[in-house]
């Protein structure tokens, strides 16, 4: 259950990354769908709105143009009431065939002069006076020279006398004309025309009026327009088969067009670029969508973080607890409920139940081990009647010393069991050596000296006894280096082993042996004090002195924790 952070295998992505990925992908898909929809519908709507704009432009144009024509007609009607003009025309008409050339010139000069004065008062491009046969009598104004005398006025549409306004071609130019009759008592004697040249300036004015691009086409030829050259040329090329309204692709751009008015073979078209309008509309839509997308992404990010944290934090807490539990084997691990979600809590509960049962099993196993080891130690002590209960007593005394030395509880537990097993290696010492009453030979003593190493070897086969091995192996080492089996010195000897060494010596001195009687506690302490610093660690001996009253009765007997009284 340890964290596998250092594992070389490729790791799956973090939960946060996954959540983020899923949410962002969803958002992106949604946004793409919205984008596509917006693009399609924007274009469609723009096409409709451009067409509607042209239609309303046409209506406005029709209204304004109608009014303008009426105003022009009213202006022309006022101008037509010029008495001199009318008298001269009527006289000229009556006598043109009979009068002298000089007289005719006088009349015409009078007409010209009068017409020039009238023309100065209007802003028409030309002012034309025609007789009852619609033949030009005189013309004045900026483009008056385009209307030579004697030339019939060919109205582009209908019979001239029936037409009040229309389009007339004169002098290579196209004119929009408004006409009023000159009358003498309801009898027409001529016609006055106000003409406006259909040039680009006219188209520009019309464009601002209709709020659209303007193209004027006459007899299939472009007369004037506000469109770019290439676009206008393409429109002209397609003008022959032109419907009154619709859409067309001109110079790669989509346009909606509508005929504002048709005068004879001359048509006035209003055009609106769909692409341009939809670009603007799409730009706005994209900007708004981008804002929404950014907002959605930010929200998704926050939501992902929150979601991932909600999921990963309890799991992380759980695994951290497990990791901590894994570092202290045997510790009873109980995880707190995170309260974040039912699933995680269930997991926690299940784990806690599992841990409880594992701990219980472990406890039972350890208890069984400890029991059997204690039995083994007891049995070992029982080989020699003089050493009966020795291991138990050393264990109790060692624990007392360790407590005195303020060792941690974990260490104390290791010492308790280690001390119980410290002589386990004597199992391999033959009885004749172990139980020999007399002095040992060199060889025999060497056999005795093997027991710490033998004990360590025995314990190595039990994994949970590994921490106890130093006690067993090193409990005969001395600070001055004259101990066995390795001859370690001072600080090289672990504290556990030092404690057990002192406790072992004390118990040996206070126990009866075949070759001597048991000595009292005070003697034993004095004896041990004598060798403090050489055979024993002084610090541990100090602790023994302090701890001893707590573990012995007044008679100097050692009180064993399981209540057994052992004779000193």
């Amino acid at each position, binding site marked *: 259950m340890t964290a596998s952070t250092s594992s070389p295998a490729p790791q799956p992505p973090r939960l946060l990354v996954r959540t983020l990925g899923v949410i962002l992908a969803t958002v992106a898909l949604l946004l793409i769908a919205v984008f596509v929809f917006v693009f399609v519908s924007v274009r469609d709507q723009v096409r409709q709105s451009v067409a509607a704009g042209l239609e309303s432009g046409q209506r406005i144009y029709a209204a304004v143009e109608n009014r303008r024509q009426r105003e022009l007609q*009213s202006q022309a009607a006022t101008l037509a009431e010029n008495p*001199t003009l*009318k008298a001269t025309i009527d*006289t000229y008409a009556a*006598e043109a065939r009979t009068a002298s050339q000089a007289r005719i010139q*006088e009349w015409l000069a009078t007409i010209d002069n009068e017409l020039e004065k009238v023309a100065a008062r209007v802003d028409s491009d030309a002012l034309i006076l025609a007789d009852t046969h619609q033949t030009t009598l005189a013309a004045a104004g900026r483009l008056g020279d385009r209307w030579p005398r004697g030339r019939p006025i060919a109205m582009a549409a209908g019979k001239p006398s029936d037409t009040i306004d229309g389009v007339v071609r004169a002098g290579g130019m196209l004119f929009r004309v408004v006409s009023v009759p000159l009358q003498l008592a309801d009898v027409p004697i001529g016609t006055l025309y106000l003409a406006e040249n259909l040039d680009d300036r006219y188209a520009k004015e019309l464009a601002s009026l209709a709020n659209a691009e303007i193209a004027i086409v006459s007899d299939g030829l472009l007369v004037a327009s506000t469109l770019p050259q290439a676009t206008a040329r393409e429109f002209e090329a397609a003008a022959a088969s032109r419907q009154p309204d619709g859409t067309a692709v001109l110079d790669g751009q989509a346009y909606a067009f509508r005929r504002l008015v048709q005068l004879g073979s001359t048509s006035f078209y209003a055009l609106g670029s769909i692409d341009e309008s939809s670009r603007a509309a799409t730009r706005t839509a994209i900007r708004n969508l981008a804002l929404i997308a950014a907002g959605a992404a930010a929200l998704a990010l926050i939501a992902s973080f929150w979601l991932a944290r909600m999921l990963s934090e309890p799991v992380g807490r759980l695994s951290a607890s497990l990791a901590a539990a894994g570092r202290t084997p045997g510790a009873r691990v109980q995880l707190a409920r995170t309260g974040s979600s039912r699933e995680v809590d269930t997991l926690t509960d299940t784990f806690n139940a599992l841990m409880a049962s594992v701990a219980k099993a472990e406890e039972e196993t350890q208890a069984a081990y400890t029991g059997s080891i204690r039995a083994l130690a007891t049995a070992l002590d029982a080989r020699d009647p003089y050493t009966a209960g020795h291991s138990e007593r050393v264990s109790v005394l060692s624990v007392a010393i360790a407590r005195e030395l303020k060792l941690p509880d974990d260490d104390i537990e290791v010492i308790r069991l280690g001390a119980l097993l410290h002589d386990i290696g004597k199992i391999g010492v033959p009885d004749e050596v172990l139980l020999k009453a007399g002095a040992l030979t060199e060889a025999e003593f060497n056999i005795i000296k093997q027991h710490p190493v033998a004990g360590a070897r025995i314990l190595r086969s039990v994994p949970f006894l590994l921490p106890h091995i130093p006690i067993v192996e090193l409990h005969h080492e001395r600070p001055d280096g004259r101990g066995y089996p390795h001859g370690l010195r001072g600080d090289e000897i672990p504290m556990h082993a030092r404690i057990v060494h002192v406790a072992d010596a004390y118990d040996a001195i206070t126990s009866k042996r075949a070759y001597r009687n048991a000595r009292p506690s005070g003697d034993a302490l004095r004896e041990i004090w004598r060798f403090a610093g050489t055979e024993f660690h002084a610090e541990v001996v100090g602790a023994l002195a302090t701890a001893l009253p707590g573990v012995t009765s007044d008679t100097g007997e050692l009180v064993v924790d399981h209540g057994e009284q052992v004779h000193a």
Partner: protein
Amino acid sequence: MLRGRVLFGACLLLSALAAGAQPQETGSIAGHIRLTARVRAPLPANPYPSRAIGRHEAPAAPEIRNVVVYLRDPGFKGALPASHVELHQENETFVPHVLAITKGSTVDFPNDDPFFHNVFSLSSAATFNLGRYPRGKSKAQTFNKAGLVKVFCDIHSHMSASILVLDHPYFAIPGTDGNYEIRNVPAGQYTIIGWHERVGERAASVRVDAGRQAAVDLTVPVEDVP
């Protein structure tokens, strides 16, 4: 129509009796004039009425009264009888609209309207301007040259009149019924003209016999196709 003819027959008889006293042998010409063209044709599409004020209060004279019937170059010799006639200005109209006079005649132009009028002409036969004058005043103009004289008012641009100045006395303006009569015409072969200032003229040949009446009916400008 038949009754008209009978009536004319009686007139003719009377005039023949009167002519009988004259030294020269003369006859007369009589007939009926029909106008077949529409003269007053305001343009249907003109949204603005004429500027004339109160012109329609008085009933307009019938168009037939604007026709003059005369002989073309009858070769009149002798003293031309000069007349003195009036051409009124009333209700912003020249009344009558068409006048036929002999050369040397004088026309008075009395102003009957409560505002100023003007009389002027640019015609070759008589170019004049009588200036502006108020109600009750009158100005005269003598016409000493044959020809058509168009008369206008420079205040009221819709006013116009035509004065046909002839160098012989053989002319007539038909009555409202279209009938005319030219008397005391020397016997001979003539061309008779029916003239209207707008719709044009129509000519016909006529032979006048002494003491007799020649009948010439004219349709101006053209005969109706039946």
